[in-house]
Structure formats: structure tokens, C-alpha cells
């Protein structure tokens, strides 16, 4: 790939993009600052309300997973904070099921799904947003309509298709049906639609090919949405339960969501261990969210460019 084109287009893009978080208010006059303090207080108040309202289930599960064997976890009223916190339940998950193997399978599936969704989703989204061609509207509605179909309805057909393609009991069989979803395509299309036209026009003058314009000009400007697509598709692949269970035969290939089902059964159902298992499944998702968030938390609120 030609370096000169790349660097020139990337600078163009940088200039178009809003500044990163952390930039200060340009002219903090005195009255503004006082209002700022009140505003900040209000903001934290709202954030705390949001915290109480939204964090509940997560903390509840965390608390259950940390409770010791002598604590009655169905006590009424419930005990919110474990009296004898322990990590023993997490160890027990690892003793009970090959949690690393399952997590490895999940990771492979989820990373593959995130990659293919970002790549194919943005290719399709780019075509839908930035190219004019016959059948564009039809293609748009076609992808949209794939989102409407409830999976349970088509499950048996999808399985028959997967079988005829030889995908049964392979991780590829788990990945392919959601390798690019309507959601990814629509999100990417929407992001490309928002790009200013000048961006492309400059690149066209540079004499770049369509693929280069897509890959070197358009893609870097939609990193925010790309990370959203990555998170969403990673999350769906990681959480999916029914399809992996159906398409996989050999339990060695099971993903984590399927595998942790073994923690609760007819003969055993230790809620603390189950909670620990679900925490193990949740933590990678939150970690991923943390690591990608800086790409889409670029606010307008920070306002001005310094200097």
C-alpha cells in the first residue's frame, strides 16, 4: 500500500475529527466557573442515580458469587454484602468444568465474529452509504429484514444448511451464521453516511481506488462506530447459547455460555458457584468495553480546541 496516500489522507481525517476528551474549556471566566461547579454537582448526582439504578443486578451477582458456604443465599430479606467473602466459588467453577478450555473456545468465536462483522459489515455499510447503484434500497431492506427474523423460527433450517455445508461440530459452524449481522451493516452504514463529502472528494482528486478510499480514508474516520460493532458482535457471539449448543456435538468444543450450564443441574445447583460462573463470563465483556470505550467516548462537551 502506498504510504504517501495513506499519510496524506489520514491527516485530512484527523483535521475533520473532533478533539479528544480531556481538553479544557477555553475561556473559563469566573461566572462560568461557578455555574460549572453547580453543573458538575448535578452531573454527579445524576450519575449516582444512574449507578444505583443500573448496577443492581451486576452487584447482586458479584455479591452472591463471593458468599461463603455457610451463608444462606436465599435469606429473606436478602443479605446484600457477603458476611464471609471468599474466592472459593471461583476455584470451584474451575474444578467443576474446564473453564479455560470453554473460555478459549468462546474467545476464538467472539474474536472471529468481531473481526468479520467489522470487516464485512463496514464493506457492506460503505457500499450502502457511499455508492449509488441499482438495487441499493433493496439491499438495504434485505439486510434490515434479516434482523426481524426470530432465530428460533429458522433454527432447524439453519442447522440443515450448516450440516450440508459440513459445518456441524466446528467452531466455523458457530461463527458463520452471525459472521456479519444486519445490525453491524446498519451501524456502519449510518456512520459512513455521516462523513462529510469533502473527505472523499479530496481522495478522488488524489486518484485513489475505491478500495483505498474505503480502507484508508473512510475506515479511520469511523473508528468509534467500528468499536461499537466490535463490542456488540463480540458480546452476541460470547453470549449466544442455543446455536452453539445445537451445532456443536463434542463438548470439548463448547463455548463458555453452554459450558457453565453444567454448573446447575438436576443433582447440583449451588447458586454461589453458578454466580461465580456467570461472573467469569461477564468480566471479559466489561473488560472489552473498558478497553474500547475511548474510541467512542469523544465528546462534544469538551468543546474547543486549545490555543
Amino acid at each position, binding site marked *: 500500500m502506498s504510504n504517501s496516500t495513506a499519510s496524506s489522507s489520514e491527516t485530512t481525517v484527523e483535521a475533520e475529527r473532533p478533539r479528544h476528551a480531556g481538553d479544557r474549556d477555553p475561556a473559563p471566566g469566573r461566572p462560568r466557573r461557578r455555574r460549572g461547579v453547580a453543573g458538575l454537582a448535578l452531573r454527579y448526582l445524576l450519575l449516582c442515580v444512574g449507578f444505583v439504578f443500573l448496577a443492581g443486578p451486576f452487584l447482586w451477582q458479584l455479591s452472591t458469587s463471593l458468599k461463603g458456604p455457610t451463608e444462606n443465599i436465599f435469606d429473606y430479606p436478602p443479605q446484600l454484602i457477603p458476611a464471609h467473602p471468599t474466592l472459593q466459588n471461583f476455584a470451584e467453577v474451575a474444578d467443576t468444568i474446564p473453564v479455560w478450555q470453554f473460555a478459549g473456545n468462546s474467545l476464538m468465536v467472539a474474536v472471529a465474529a468481531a473481526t468479520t462483522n467489522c470487516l464485512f459489515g463496514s*464493506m*457492506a455499510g460503505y457500499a450502502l452509504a457511499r455508492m449509488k447503484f441499482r438495487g441499493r434500497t433493496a439491499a438495504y431492506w434485505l439486510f434490515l429484514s434479516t434482523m426481524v427474523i*426470530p432465530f428460533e423460527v429458522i433454527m432447524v*433450517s439453519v442447522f440443515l444448511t450448516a450440516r450440508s455445508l459440513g459445518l456441524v461440530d466446528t467452531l466455523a459452524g458457530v461463527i458463520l451464521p452471525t459472521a456479519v449481522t444486519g445490525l453491524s451493516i446498519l451501524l456502519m452504514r*449510518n456512520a459512513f453516511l455521516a462523513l462529510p463529502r469533502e473527505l472523499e472528494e479530496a481522495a478522488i482528486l488524489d486518484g485513489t481506488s475505491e478500495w483505498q478510499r474505503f480502507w484508508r480514508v473512510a475506515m479511520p474516520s469511523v473508528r*468509534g462506530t467500528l468499536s461499537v460493532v466490535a463490542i456488540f458482535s463480540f*458480546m452476541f457471539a460470547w453470549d449466544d447459547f442455543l446455536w452453539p449448543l445445537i451445532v456443536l456435538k463434542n463438548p470439548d468444543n463448547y463455548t463458555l455460555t453452554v459450558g457453565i450450564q453444567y454448573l446447575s443441574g438436576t443433582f447440583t445447583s449451588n447458586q454461589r458457584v453458578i454466580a461465580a460462573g456467570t461472573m467469569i463470563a461477564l468480566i471479559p465483556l466489561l473488560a472489552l468495553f473498558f478497553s474500547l470505550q475511548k474510541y467512542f467516548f469523544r465528546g462534544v462537551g469538551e468543546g474547543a480546541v486549545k490555543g
Partner: protein
Amino acid sequence: MTGRRWYTPWLFLAPALLIAATFSIGPFANTAVLAFTNAKALGGGHFTGLANFIRMGQDDTFWLAMGNTALYVVVCVPLLVTLPLLLALLVQRQVPGIGFFRAVFYSPVVASMVVVGLVWTWLLQSDGLVNWVLQSLQVISGPLPFLTDAQLLLFSAMFVTVWKGLGYYMVVYLAALANVPAELHEAAALDGAGEVRRFWSITVPTIRSTMLLVGILSVIASAKVFAEIYVMSNGSGGPGGQSQSLVFRIRDVGLGLAGETGYASAMSLVLFICTVGFSIIFFRMSRER
């Protein structure tokens, strides 16, 4: 104008089209065929014309489920378009500790439906926290049957849908807000426009297409609602199944080894047509404004 070859767009679309055709459009075409048969879960069945659709017309449970689903869409979509945007604006500014709050606000999205059901049923049960608070504030005299009254249960499930959707759509909005050029805000601020004014005259117009997208996504999600009603009602769909949604009904009829695949397919076809139709209307409406 660009000298692009006619097939270039199709090359870009090829992988997505191939996968969509193989794993969703294809199987769904199969479903569309089955809608005109009396097929069972274990195969068999023959062509029965419109019999399934006629049966649907007389099936009270179908209409009940249809009505509940329509109500779900009408209530949830406006909330899901507006509330996550407000949440996005709240967490967008960089203040100390904000990363923590952002992740927390996203956590309902990643929490499993089982846990969500457990927590909310615990809060909403007749001797749960919500009833306790309402009673101590003397808003109500006796506990409200959030989980055992068909209507209240439906609203409780809607509440959970919105609650779980907040973080999800917040993320979509944040990505879009990041695209709003900061220069526009600066210019407007220099002109003396307040925050509210800037929100309406700059932010909203630039993220309009995202609002439309969130609208369509939430129409589709609400029309397909199942999990929330399932966990809040313990899989019963409310007393006597009075709070069930259309997908709930489709699963009841079609799933399992004795499932009536033909009839379930016919209902899926109706759901599909209604949802796509509703999306088109929504699309047109938003465009004309």
C-alpha cells in the same frame, strides 16, 4: 462520475449478501413455504393453502399476543429513542471517575437475562422493595401485583426492556455524538447559544440519522420481545398467558418435539411483514420531518 465499474458495489456487498442469503434469508424462505403447510417439528406435512392464516384469524391467543406486542412497540420505542440519548449526553463529558460510571451504565447490557429476571422479580414482588417504598410513602395502600396482574406484568417487562436497552443504545449514540464536529459547537457558543439551544440546533440535526436508526432497531427489538416477558413471568407469559408477546406465542406453538412448525411459521411470517411494514412507516415519517 467516478468511473466506478457497475460491479464494484456488489463486490463490497458480496460477503454480507452471501452470509445473509445462506443463514437467514434462505432458511426464512423455507419458513415462508412452511407457513402454507401443516408441517410438524419432526417434518412431514402437506400444502394447506391459507388454512394457517384462517386459523390465526380465529385464534384469540394470537390476537392477544399481537395486541400485547403492538402495545410494547408503542410504549418502548419512544422511550428507547430519547432516554439513551440523555444518558449519552450525561456520560459524554470527561469528568473524574467517569470511566467507572460509563462501564456501570453498560453493565445491564452484559448481565445475563436470568440474573436480570432474578433481581427485578425480587424488587417487584408483592413484598419486594418497590412495593415497600410505595407503601411507606403512602402512595398505595396495599401491595401492587406487579408480577401477577396481566397489565402490570406487561408494563414491568417493558420497564426492564427500557432499562436493559439504555446502555445499549447509549453506546450507539455516543459513537454518533463523537462525529458531531466540535467546531460547530464552538461557533455557536461564541454566538451566545446556551447548551439547550445548541443541543436542539446542532446536536439533534447531526445525529438525526442515528435517532432514526435507534428507532428502527428498537421497533425490531420490541416487536421481537420475548426474554423479558419470559423471565418476569417465570416462563408463564403471565397468569393464563395473558401477557404473552407474539414471539412468545410462536415459540409455544412451534418449539418442542410436538411443535406445529407450519402454524408457527405462518405467525412468523405475519410478524415479519408487520415489523418490516412498521419500519417502513417509521422510516418515511422520520424522513418527511
